[in-house]
């Protein structure tokens, strides 16, 4: 079967994730979109590893998963803290980064 379909799927997923990050306001959803992008990247890595016949891409996919797991821990903790102080998880709170 043609592995390039997986690459295209990966691109579609990545774009969906990117759009989610850009368009959604809820931090949790944004977070999930980021995960979607990471996994799209993983899919691309694995597909390319398959296409080129070496294992580098697959190894990197494992690394990405580990990093993503760590990021989830830290990210969710941050979101929880923000929610506790501000009673909201909207990323459009403009004062968060300004001033």
């Amino acid at each position, binding site marked *: 079967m043609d592995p390039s379909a997986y690459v295209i799927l990966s691109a579609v997923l990545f774009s969906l994730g990117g759009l989610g990050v850009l368009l959604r306001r809820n931090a949790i959803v944004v977070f999930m979109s980021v995960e979607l992008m990471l996994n799209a990247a993983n899919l691309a890595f694995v597909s390319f590893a398959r296409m080129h016949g070496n294992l580098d891409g697959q190894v990197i996919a494992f690394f990405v998963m580990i990093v993503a797991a760590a990021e989830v821990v830290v990210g969710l903790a941050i979101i929880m803290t923000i929610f506790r102080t501000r009673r909201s998880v909207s990323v459009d709170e*403009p004062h968060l980064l300004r001033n």
Partner: protein
Amino acid sequence: MTIPSLAAPLSEGSEGAVEPITATVTAADAGGYFPLMWLLIALPVIGAVVLLIGGRRTNRWGHLLATVLPIGSFVVACLLLVQMMGAPVDERLVTLHLWDWTFAGMFEAPFALRLDQLSMVFVMLITGVGSLIHVYSIGYMAHDPDRRKFFAYLNLFVAAMLLLVLADNYLLLYVGWEGVGLASYLLIGFWQQRDTAAVAAKKAFVMNRVGDVGLSVAIMLMFITFGSVTFDQVFEAAPQAGDTALTLIGLTLLLAAVGKSAQFPLQAWLLDAMEGPTPVSALIHAATMVTAGVYLIVRSNAIFDLSTTAVTFVLAVGIVTMLAGAVIACAKDDIKKSLAGSTMSQIGYMFVAAGLGPAGYVFAIFHLLMHGMFKADLFLSAGSVIHGMKDEQDMRFYGALRKVMIVTMVAFFAGFLGISGIPPFDSFFSKDEIIKAAMGTNIFAGIAALAAAGITAFYMTRMLAMTFFGEKRWKEGTEPHESPAVMTVPMLLLSVGALFGGVFFLYVADIEVWLEPITGYQPTEPAIPEPWLGILTLVIVAVGILLAWRQYAMRTVPQQPPQQVSVLTVAARNSLYDDAFNEAVFMRPGQYLTRWLVWFDNRAVDGAVRGLASKIDGFGEGLRKIQNGFARSYALSMVGGAVLVGAVFVVARWF
């Protein structure tokens, strides 16, 4: 920094170029009082410093200290003079190196003093006449609340002038030169609460600045041309320099001298300088300040001898000022302004003499010395009159003062005899020698000098008659009285100088022999045989006196100046329109220029800078909008950037 021997060969003679023929002796070698030379300057400096820093604590005794110190300088000067007279002619140039001052690469200007015959004459004049003026000021300024400050400035003036004439190089001379300018500014504007005095001080300062630029340019040119600014090295190197360089240096030096000596065309400040207290006028006109220009030219004779153009300009400036000053003096009703015109004219005589070359330098200095005495005498007497007349300076409100101010009259009369050229008093000798030298060198200068002698006699008789003779024209409530002894004694001492200085210096002290090693001296044959020339001069002087006597002593002088007068009189009353000329030629165009520059600066320069700033500001405002704090918009720009990078790769792939 002393050159052990500078015995340059004697000049060829026919060229008239004079080399310094005296060897330099250091003060340490000369011994005696010479190592104490620095005291001359240090004493008045101490006075100025103590009085200015001591402040009000010195009010009670400050003026006494400030008077004693110049007298101390005078005593030192006398000791030095005696020792110098005892020394052989070629050991009379003594230098004293005090400390290294300015050294930069090739350029060196040590703080060194140089006392020679020429400086000695000036030192005696400055300290002698200066001291008498100090004594006089004790009486004249007795009621002034700022007397201490006045004496501090007087001391500063004397110190600066002494530094000027004792300097060993042009740069140090420049220090004294500027010091004199500063002191004159402070003293002319001493009564600064009067607007006119403040303006006059500013005017004097600004016009002097024009001349000072000349001196600084001259010093720079000297360094470029000769590689040195010390007198010895400049004069030694002068004959090897090119004509253009020498002429330029000569002309810039002349510009400096013209500014300081109030000669045409920078003469306008002198009449206004009369706003200062009268002792200041005496000091400026007799002992310091205006004589500095003559000193500079005579000192630089090695340069002027080599440049015909420069020396011709000196002569021309002298002739114009000599006649213009005399004419102005004839028409002024203010006694001090009339005397100021007379100073211009007499300094003009000195410039004429200096412009004659080696035939005249000696007599320029001789006349300067005489002028120092009779003009100080005249100013102090005039001050005494003003003091007695409750600060009235208009001679039309004087008259018949001989009855109440007999001592002042005697002193003024002595000054009158001294300046008018009546034998056997001061100017008879000094002016006659200048006329003789002029007749022998340049017939136009000779005729002008003769004419000026007649006008001098005229305006002096006019002043004498209007002040002391005729009828009382006093304003109501004026009760003239004789001045106290502290004022009259200096006047009388100066009178002695004004009467007998000429005989003494020409026949007893032999001033031309004394100065010859420094300035050179070449006697000339006048175009008209000498006895006839003398008689002609006397006749012209007598005519001047008689005309003035008939006009101002025999007839009543109206209190209001007559309006139906000749164009020349009107012009002379307005100081020959010098202010109008300066205003039209320099001030107005200057103002337009500055206005245009301000406009250009505001619109073009500031406009460009401000325009650029506002553009950058606007750009920044635009940039600021991007930083809106929305995390998602930052994310968008990151995505945009990543897409761009990706696109670049893709596009690069295609090509």
